[in-house]
């Protein structure tokens, strides 16, 4: 019986099926073969890598100070990869004193030049790998090649360049990013830019001030956000200028920075910011006030405790209870505000922090004086109100569900 009679009218489809089966079987064999071969190759590669790494590690001092000549490892691809990787790992954790010999080794062996060359002449992932490696070198010579990559058409390359510049941790590396930001947006995720700038400018945040005054729109907010994280009291009166800026993000950053400033200088400005029209500026001001150890911060915090925004109220309550001492006196001032929300926020925070017992003890000691009694009553009324509010909201939800 021939094939045609065996399959009858399904002959056409049967051929197709046979082809599909053959294709699938071939695919299965190829995939299994690839997995086996890849496993074998990787096993061999890692064995060699281990052996060579051990050898290089055992003469590492010599490699760094040049006693082991670079030509003995430089021309072997695997050895070259190992030395570069050990060098870059060491540089990442090196102190400023440990850095010069390591950089010297990178320079004298030509590894740095090689990476600069790759960053300028290659494309795609190879270029990005070179940019990342250049960033890890922390060498000033790497900056121009990294800066050039900021103009790359590919977003991924620009991200790698920004991350590379950030990894150098050098102030000079911030300049190309900042210059670029003033001219045109980088069109890469903000998170990468902010991290890079924070890393480069952490010891010299004033550089950001110069650019902030010229920047516009979202770039200005981005710079302000970075400045807010890095700013120190050294910024001095510039912080007052920022605190009156039209952009709320800039004001919030100023508030954050003022948390690190001298109380005599910061408190008057923060007392203004705590009345800002934007809630997140007020929130930042509360957080900054919490970090200033000065008795005059209580009044502005009490004002914040009566804020219309619940996050600001909660933060203010947290800041007030973290004062730690004289909480009964603070409670008296909270009661004086005659703001039930403020009282609830404060009592909640007292309960959460476990300080409520201490306050009750202190008030009971003054129970004979009328003020103490009134405060105790206020405290218990506040707790009862909260109980009622909590029950009614639970009942309301139960009704809905």
């Amino acid at each position, binding site marked *: 019986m021939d094939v045609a009679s*065996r*399959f*009858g*009218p*399904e002959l056409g*489809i*049967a051929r197709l*099926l*046979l082809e*599909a*089966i053959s294709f*699938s*079987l071939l*695919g*299965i064999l190829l*995939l*299994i073969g690839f*997995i086996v071969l*890849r*496993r074998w190759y990787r096993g061999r590669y890692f064995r060699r890598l281990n052996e060579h790494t051990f050898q290089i590690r055992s003469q590492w001092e010599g490699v760094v100070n040049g006693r082991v000549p670079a030509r003995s490892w430089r021309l072997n691809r695997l050895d070259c990869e190992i030395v570069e990787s050990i060098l870059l790992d060491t540089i990442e954790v090196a102190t400023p004193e440990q850095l010069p010999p390591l950089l010297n080794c990178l320079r004298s062996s030509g590894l740095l030049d090689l990476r600069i060359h790759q960053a300028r002449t290659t494309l795609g*992932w190879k270029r*990005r*790998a070179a*940019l*990342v490696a250049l960033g890890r070198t922390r060498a000033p010579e790497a900056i121009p090649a990294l800066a050039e990559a900021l103009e790359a058409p590919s977003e*991924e390359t620009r*991200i*790698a360049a920004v*991350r590379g510049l*950030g*990894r150098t941790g050098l102030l000079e590396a911030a300049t190309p990013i900042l210059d670029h930001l003033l001219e045109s947006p980088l069109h890469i*995720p*903000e*998170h*990468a830019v*902010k*991290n890079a700038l*924070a*890393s480069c400018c952490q010891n010299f945040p004033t550089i950001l001030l110069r650019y902030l005054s010229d920047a516009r729109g979202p770039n200005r907010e981005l710079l302000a*956000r970075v400045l807010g*994280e890095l700013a120190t009291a050294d910024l001095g009166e510039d912080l007052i200028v920022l605190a009156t800026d039209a952009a709320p993000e800039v004001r919030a950053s100023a508030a954050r920075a003022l948390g690190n400033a001298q109380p005599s200088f910061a408190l008057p400005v923060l007392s203004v910011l705590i009345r800002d029209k934007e809630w997140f500026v007020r929130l930042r001001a509360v957080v900054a006030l919490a970090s200033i150890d000065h008795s005059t911060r209580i009044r502005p915090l009490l004002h914040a405790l009566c804020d219309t925004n*619940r*996050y600001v109220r*909660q933060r203010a309550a947290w800041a007030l209870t973290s004062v730690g001492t004289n909480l009964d006196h603070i409670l008296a001032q909270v009661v004086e505000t005659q703001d039930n929300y403020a009282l*609830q*926020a404060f*009592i*909640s925070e007292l*309960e*959460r*922090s*476990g300080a409520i017992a201490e306050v009750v003890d202190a008030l009971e000691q003054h129970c004979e004086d009328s003020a103490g009694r009134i405060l105790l009553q206020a405290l218990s009324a506040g707790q009862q109100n*909260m109980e009622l509010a909590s029950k009614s*909201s*639970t*009942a309301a*939800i*139960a009704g*809905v*569900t």
Partner: protein
Amino acid sequence: MRSLLEISNQSLFVYYLVSNLIYLLLLITAIYRNTWHRHRLASLRLEQVKMSPFTPPVTLIVPAHNEEAFIVHSVQALLSLDYPSLELVVVNDGSRDRTLAELKSAFQLRPTRLLYIPEIISAPVHGIYKSIIEPRLLVLDKDSAGSKADAVNAGLNAASSPYVCVVDADSILEKDSILRIMAGVFSEPDRVVAVGGIVRVLNGCGVFKGELRQVKLPRRSIEIMQVIEYLRAFLIGREAWAQFNALPIISGAFGIFRTDLVRKIKGYRTHAIGEDFDLVVRLHRYMQEQSKDYHINFIPDPTCWTEVPGDLRSLARQRARWHKGLLDTLWPNRDMLFRRRYGRVGSLILPYMWIFEFFAPVIELIGYSTMIVAAVTGLLSREFFVLFLLYGYAFATLISIGSVLLEEMTYRRYSDWREVAHLLLYCLFEHFPYRQFTLMWRLQGIWQYMRGDFRWREMKRTGMSSAAG
């Protein structure tokens, strides 16, 4: 009769061909995307993300229902995750055991009256607790509404971070999983509204005090089959659909979402059977209706380990429930089908889910039946019948081996030669007879749904402690 059988057989042939070609396309896309992702990660330094003051806070929501055995270890493990700004909201969902008591004593919980605004409706919350020793921990004690979705909704009301991550109490997250999953957000913070990570099979692995110590392949065949299924579903399916911005599902065991958007769509649907699928479809719907540019992403390296059913009965229940969940989401969203307004979701992914996921067991059953009838009655040559079965089997096996290849090329969690050989061997059995079993269970799911049987049937669990290998 003859022409009917012929039409049926030819339709079945075309159906299989199209379905296999789609899978092949997904496999190729997944390989491309995976390679791209690994290259992209090379320039990202997780340590810097961890130290960065600009890394946004994340709230982990952990619904816990009768989890007394490992809730404390779970919470401790979650609190020790590498992430700079983490808040942990544990929702005790009407547990009848000592779940809350265990938490109270381990973390010195105190009742607190934080302002709880039930923006999303859930069963009543009658206690909010904060820990004295761990300020990042918040515990909600609520009545059970009989669904995980309801517990998560309560957690969503209490969350204070811009991103929430829902984690099962009995699952284990790898230390850097939140950092890694958030990398998917940092890449396009304005567009990315949700990110899914990979879920892997915990059975067989070594676990100590809620932390994964050793990755091992499970011993039971039924569990190994599920390892292959999970690899295929995540490393091929989700990876590839995310490339087309048409990811239909983020696993309920591990996914991150923008809090404001989840609140806007009123959180999880309380009585949804497949609440995770339902949420993602509703997110797609909302974003498309608002004409917003968005991306629901999948990142293959943040890993969550979860226990899978170790016996046939539990597996059957789970698969029936998954299939019910599929219909339970597809049906209410049927108006999205082929509507231009819903973009790729309406024109590509939902039709795919209907045809190649929901109807797959029905079509397969009809196919088997008509082919057997045709072969027995002589309307179809027996050789053709065998060839057809062989074709279906070989192609599906090729895709399964493709998922093992992807695992090998990327994350290599199973490093032992023997384990990989085992996986490859089981790929040969996945499409016969395991597939026929799942076909039956999925049909059961459809039947249960049509009968209105939406009961949650408990899965028999061995627990994390006994998962230690």
